[in-house]
């Protein structure tokens, strides 16, 4: 079975480009050129240079001794939290902004949930001197205030999405509408492996640097490129796509995708799409999505703004249906406990999103000689107010 996109833009039955005709020229332009541009030597040279000297890659693969001791296995953390701007998101925005420049686009738009993709987009736009507009749900603007401040500091215009659930889904709707209204000069940097083909494949390729480095680093540290498990959180699924990418065709490597269960998978307040979702169309892609019997998209819930999305990238829908990846979920509470555990055992404060991946460590039942790589996709600075409140560190 192939886990890569086919020439028509599908992963199994998922994917495609279900877009209104207004978007066709833009998406078609991208589809025709993305692979060619990405393979050009001068593109690769500029990308590699920026990933190394600007982003700070390769990120360390850190053996976590106290976490390993606690779970009686070998736990490694892929430190995407150490990237410039604090998460894996910049791997993709650097790549896409270079593409946008080669396509002659002057105006960049993006959607953001937790604000990490918005910050990463605003950052590369500042670097390249491009106009930047970021759509963000009104609720997320409130709960991720530090990232809103960073985007503004970087010169981006942050536009509140006030429709629907006022979160990531609605921010994405608004960004797509902006693109429909500005078809000539605008490039839309999608932040996850979602949206119409070629976005899921393109974003996965830009994030694939994560697993490319993992292989080399594991070979050096463990004498094998292949871990027993790779664990990553999944909202849309870009960090998971990057962490899984170079292991998709290595069946002995167990891929574990962790979704946000919110207040419990069946509580009515959850974002566990693989369990709660059905085959459908969201944001131009056929995938699993949370919806009513009538096909109206439902409003998900997670304490983590980055995982608060009713769909999942088509690659992940395919990995789920084909059983190539194991899907787990972690509740708000489990994620918060995992935050505190990592902080106190290893001195690393993770992002709420990444903590969902940490939260399933005990469920893996990993053996002492197993190698578990957890993709630590982002750092927790943006979530400090949530942490202070939850753990009562804000009390005098």
């Amino acid at each position, binding site marked *: 079975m192939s886990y890569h996109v086919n020439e028509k833009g599908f992963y199994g039955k998922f994917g*495609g480009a*279900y877009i209104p005709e207004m978007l066709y020229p833009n998406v078609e332009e991208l589809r025709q050129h993305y692979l060619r541009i990405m393979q050009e030597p001068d593109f690769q040279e500029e990308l590699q240079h920026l990933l190394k000297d600007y982003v700070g890659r390769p990120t360390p693969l850190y053996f976590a001794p106290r976490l390993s001791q606690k779970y009686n296995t070998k736990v490694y953390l892929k430190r995407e939290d150490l990237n410039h701007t604090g998460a894996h998101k910049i791997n993709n925005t650097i790549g896409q902004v270079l593409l946008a420049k080669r396509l002659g686009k002057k105006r960049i738009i993006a959607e953001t949930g937790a604000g990490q993709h918005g910050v990463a987009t605003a950052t590369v736009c500042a670097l390249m001197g491009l106009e930047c507009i970021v759509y963000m749900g009104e609720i997320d603007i409130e709960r991720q205030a530090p990232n809103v401040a960073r985007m503004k500091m970087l010169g981006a215009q942050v536009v509140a999405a006030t429709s629907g659930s006022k979160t990531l889904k609605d921010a994405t709707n608004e960004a797509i*509408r902006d693109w*429909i209204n500005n*078809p000539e000069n605008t490039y839309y940097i999608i932040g996850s492996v979602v949206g119409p083909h070629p976005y899921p494949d393109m974003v996965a390729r830009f994030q694939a640097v994560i697993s490319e480095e993992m292989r080399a680093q594991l070979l050096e540290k463990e004498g094998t490129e292949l871990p027993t498990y790779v664990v990553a959180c999944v909202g849309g699924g870009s960090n998971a796509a990057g962490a899984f990418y170079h292991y998709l065709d290595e069946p002995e490597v167990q891929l574990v995708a962790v979704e946000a269960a919110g207040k419990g998978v069946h509580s009515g307040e959850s974002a566990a799409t693989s369990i709660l979702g*059905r085959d*459908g*169309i969201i944001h131009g892609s056929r995938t699993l999505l949370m919806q009513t019997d009538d096909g*109206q*998209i439902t409003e998900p819930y997670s304490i983590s703004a980055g995982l608060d999305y009713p769909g999942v990238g088509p690659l992940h829908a395919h990995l789920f249906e084909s059983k190539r990846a194991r899907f787990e979920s972690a509740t708000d509470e489990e994620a918060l406990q995992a935050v505190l555990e990592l902080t106190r055992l290893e001195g690393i404060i993770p992002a709420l999103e990444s903590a969902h991946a940490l939260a399933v460590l005990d469920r893996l039942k990993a053996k002492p000689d197993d190698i578990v790589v957890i993709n630590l996709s982002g750092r927790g600075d943006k979530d400090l107010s949530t942490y202070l409140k939850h753990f009562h560190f804000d009390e005098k």
Partner: protein
Amino acid sequence: MKNRIKSLFAQKPKGLLSVYFTAGFPNLNDTETIILELEKSGVDLIEVGMPFSDPLADGPTIQASSTVALKNGMTIPKLFEQLQDIRQKTQIPLVLMGYLNPVMQYGVERFCQKAAEVGIDGIILPDLPLHQYVEEYKELFEKYNLSKVFLVTPQTPEARIREIDCHSNGFIYMVSSASTTGKTVGLAEQSQAYFQRVAGMQLQNPGVIGFGIHDKETFVAACNHASGAIIGSAFVKALQQEGSLQENISSFIQSIKN
């Protein structure tokens, strides 16, 4: 089998007025009243909107009407129930317009079958791309004698317009300018060039211009370049005026036609 859309364009090749409304708005059971009043006011073709939670191609007016309609309880089964006897009351061509996901969940074949059964003539699904339609659904639509209407925009290349024309049977929906629905900037100079370019292509399907048509001036301008024009957001706004539904509809349509 006769299709009312084809008969309409054969009888009236110019100056045709098509109106869109969102089913279930302002009230759940207004569908029949709106259709009959539109016909009485002299409208030629009606697009019945099936509300969707995430209407990507629509601006704020149609988004808001969709939210209200869904809150009112509108669903595809409900809409078919409301349209069950419509053909005993009117022969005006009716087109259903909506997004693919709710139709997919209802079942595309079941949807086509039911639409044909209640007397629907055409379907517009902006997010069903042409090649997907041709590969998966075209046979179904033809089996049930439903016209599939596609959109073209000022950015659509000539070869693609020809391809769309080849797979369309009814009319081609010419989006006036690159935008979501409900922008009222008028028809730009660039749009005129695009209308003329399409008119010059001698397509087999007639063209009808939509998006941004909101008053008599824009309606007349659009009709100069195509077989007719479509009004959506401006009509949905008119339905929200004070006064009875019938009065609002007839005074709005009169303001366009007279």
